[in-house]
């Protein structure tokens, strides 16, 4: 090799290294709102002391849009890593990753730039989901199959509203058969739950839209059909129940309906346990088939309203971005990596509402399917 070629090669290598050293990694994350609290905690933990910027600065575990910037030394060395998260539902995340045309009424979320301006990118890299891809209307038999990393267990609870209707105090349990009827008709007499024929007043159902993994889990578990069209109600400006033809876009919105003490009628709603804990501090959760939610009841198989939390990757995602999930160690079980899957698992160890996979004594093969001992 002559001297000139050597210099060119050296220059190219130097430029390449410099480029790599200064390259930024930007990863777009969307999907489940029910799991946003654990996602917030785990992403922050992954950055650790390397987190230099959080947008908005006052972001909390309930924020639906957060952008994180900094370095994650264990995964990307000194490269600046920006993770932009925007959550609007598990199914929405899957719609995004498989590249499906949006069904009517679906708008993909936008993200936040570091300066809080809008990043109009609408193509996600990763999506968290409360449900399997094949539970949705975008199954792998029709759309591209998504790589699935199960990172935890997400739990749900039927929850009643705080309104001071006397008969509501006697509403304490819902069976899966009652759940099917409430989902179909959206309203039933209170006597349907209290057993007292004199309770002729109506109780209404509030719930999520069809892009929600929460909705699919509730509907799959009681046998109503994950993608069936439920009848839902919400509150109008006069706090009276009116038909909700679309459904609520987030669990926080359902919790708001249940927390409306001025409502003219009682409600029950479908919530993740995180949002459910914001309604009367979790005291208004109903038992399901006679069993109260607790982490132990989920771990041992008595309480069935739960699903796996999935971290899906867009088909053809670059190895650089995949590193975020499985870390640099890339073990078969992503939870044992040094990536986001492990950070989520660690965050779940202190969660009051959701469960670490490794602590489960039971499992299930699909959403709403029988629960078996591991």
């Amino acid at each position, binding site marked *: 090799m002559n001297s000139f070629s050597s210099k060119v090669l050296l220059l190219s290598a130097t430029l390449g290294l410099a480029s790599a050293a200064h390259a930024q990694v930007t990863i777009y994350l969307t999907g489940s709102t029910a799991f946003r609290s654990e996602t917030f905690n785990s992403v922050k933990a992954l950055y650790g002391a390397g987190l230099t910027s959080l947008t908005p600065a006052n972001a909390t575990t309930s924020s639906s849009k957060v952008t994180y910037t900094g370095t994650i030394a264990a995964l990307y060395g000194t490269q600046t890593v920006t993770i932009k998260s925007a959550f609007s539902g598990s199914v929405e995340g899957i719609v995004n990753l498989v590249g*499906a*045309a949006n*069904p*009517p009424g679906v708008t993909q979320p936008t993200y936040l730039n570091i300066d809080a301006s809008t990043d109009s990118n609408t193509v996600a890299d990763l999506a968290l989901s409360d449900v399997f891809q*094949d539970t*949705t*209307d*975008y*199954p792998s*038999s*029709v759309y591209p199959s998504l790589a699935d990393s199960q990172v935890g267990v997400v739990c749900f609870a039927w929850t009643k509203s705080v309104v001071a209707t006397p008969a509501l105090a006697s509403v304490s349990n819902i069976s899966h058969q009652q759940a*099917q*009827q409430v*989902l*179909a*008709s*959206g309203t*039933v007499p209170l006597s349907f739950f209290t057993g007292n024929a004199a309770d002729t007043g109506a109780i209404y159902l509030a719930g999520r839209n*069809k892009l929600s993994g929460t909705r699919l889990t509730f509907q799959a578990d009681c*046998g*109503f*059909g994950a*993608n*069936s*069209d*439920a*009848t839902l109600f919400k509150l109008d400006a006069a706090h009276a129940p009116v*038909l909700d*033809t679309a459904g609520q876009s987030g669990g926080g919105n359902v919790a708001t309906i249940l927390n409306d003490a001025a409502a003219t009628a009682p409600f029950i709603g479908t919530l993740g346990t995180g949002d459910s804990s914001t309604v009367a501090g979790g005291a208004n959760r109903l038992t399901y088939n006679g069993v109260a939610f607790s982490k132990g009841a989920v771990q041992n198989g008595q309480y069935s309203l739960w699903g796996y939390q999935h971290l899906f990757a867009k088909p053809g995602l670059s190895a650089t971005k995949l590193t975020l999930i499985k870390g640099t160690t890339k073990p078969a079980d992503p939870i044992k990596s040094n990536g986001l899957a492990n950070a989520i698992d660690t965050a779940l160890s202190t969660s009051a509402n959701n469960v670490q996979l490794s602590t489960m004594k039971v499992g299930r093969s699909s959403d709403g399917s029988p629960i078996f001992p591991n």
Partner: protein
Amino acid sequence: MNPMISRTWLSAVALAALAPLAVAQNFSYSDQNVLLAIRPTAANSSTSSLLMNLGPVSNFYNAAPGTSFSVGNTALVGNTFSSLVGLSYSFSAVNKTITSDAARPLQTLWVSRGRIDPAVQSDPWLDKSSGNLANTATKISTLGSGATTLPAVAGTSGAAVVIPNTDTAHNVGRWIGSGTSGGGSGSTYNGTFQGNSEVTKLAPFGAAELVRADFYEVTPGTADAKYLGYFQINNNGGSTFTAAGVAVVPEPGTVVLAISGLAALVLWRRRSSN
């Protein structure tokens, strides 16, 4: 510029501009649209079902008495199925969102019922409680709204979709087929409905066979469902709707007038002959 090249370039640019318009659109469905579902039974080897949106159900319940019109895309039936033998047809619609129509409240269903004798109207479905109808309403609505996640058949303006039997999420049989969770044998919509909404063709394309299904409006209540007319499944796989005719019953006043007129005529004739 060579005129030939210029024209070619212009054509290319025009085609490129039109290309986005050619992108397949999704199946379109709104509440109170009539769905025609055609699915193969065991006697038909087809591997797909066909779902068509026939438009607002008001076109059917407002149709002038006795009028007939074609519905659906007949050519598409021929393109989708190699034989008519063993194809089951059902027609359905539902109100799950409109609260302003007192005559057709929430959970109102419109459901077909096959005729045993093509010349004789079937027994009407029965109105049921709102809670009862809600379970079937869910199945019908889900069939339509679920299909909106699928690309429609090109050239059908979003009014038809072919669903492979292997597509478990949208499988027509899953939503219309009979179930084991109540409703009895043969009851459709997963056993939630009071009977079978389907009518099945037994003869191949072109063979003479009269197959009809009546169309009823089932509202929350306890009366018989309202008869709207009937669908005829034609020998080419297409369908025709004929609105219910009205039997003219003269009002009592009219009868009295007619008798008076007749009596006057008789009297006048007698006087004339005298």
